[in-house]
């Protein structure tokens, strides 16, 4: 192995060390130390393994998964709020005040949910989404059964079902992410 290739391989080992989650860095320091004892012919294979292990450890580290889950929840809620604002804006030119209020109200709830999730974590998502799901399910059932006859009831039902799907996904993701650490510890 030429000195240039050797230093490139060493740089990759250092890169693996930097990619690895902080809690696992000592193991990647061990791999870096072992690099000097690996025969030159096998070094690239060893380095590739170091990089693979670093990326894998990073991706399955609870901190990274929590970051991803929280970003999806916060980002998703903000996107959904933006779509509802867009919908409410469109409804404002059609003189359907109730739908406009529904759109802005939903957007406000999702913005509050996003901020609460960013600030307080999954507990906030679960605490907000669970009662909202219950209320929306009740409303959807009433519309479905014709107990609260409204004009455009099918549109209301569709909007509520959309929100329910989004909320259930958020609830499932928050619940899964909250239980992630104990699950991770069971993996071998």
């Amino acid at each position: 192995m030429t000195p240039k290739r050797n230093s490139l391989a060493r740089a990759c080992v250092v890169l693996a060390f930097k990619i690895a989650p902080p809690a696992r860095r000592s193991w990647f320091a061990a791999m870096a130390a072992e690099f000097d004892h690996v025969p030159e012919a096998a070094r690239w294979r060893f380095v590739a393994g170091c990089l693979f292990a670093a990326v894998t450890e990073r991706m399955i580290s609870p901190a990274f998964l929590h970051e991803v889950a929280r970003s999806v929840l916060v980002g998703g809620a903000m996107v959904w709020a933006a779509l509802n604002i867009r919908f409410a804006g469109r409804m404002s030119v059609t003189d359907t005040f109730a739908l406009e209020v529904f759109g802005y109200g939903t957007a406000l709830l999702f913005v509050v949910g996003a901020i609460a999730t960013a600030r307080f974590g999954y507990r906030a998502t679960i605490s907000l989404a669970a009662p909202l799901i219950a209320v929306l399910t009740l409303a959807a059932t009433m519309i479905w059964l014709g107990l609260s006859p409204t004009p455009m009831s099918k549109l209301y039902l569709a909007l509520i079902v959309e929100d329910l799907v989004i909320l259930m996904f958020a609830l499932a993701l928050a619940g899964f992410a909250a239980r992630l650490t104990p699950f991770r510890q069971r993996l071998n």
Partner: protein
Amino acid sequence: MPRRPNISKQTRTALLALLERPQDWRYGYELMELTGIASGTLYPMLIRLCDQGNLEAQWVPSPHESRPPRHAYRLTPSGMALARTIEPDNVRIANHVKGFAL
């Protein structure tokens, strides 16, 4: 009927390799050569075994003067007990078992 521990074939290979000389400290590359498991598979496995208390690790000075210290591994008593539950017939040590990861 006692439940068999749910461990991968590669982990069983590594455990059996470590059980061959349970009192000796073994190096990562030495284990790679002995088991045929690639570094990308072996090291995460060693991390898990250490987390579970089946393996202990320490830095040892290199016998070669110009080289840095090495990380060495050996089984803990619980690791030895776990390794002894493995049936060696199902696992072949040395260059037959390759890790998925490089």
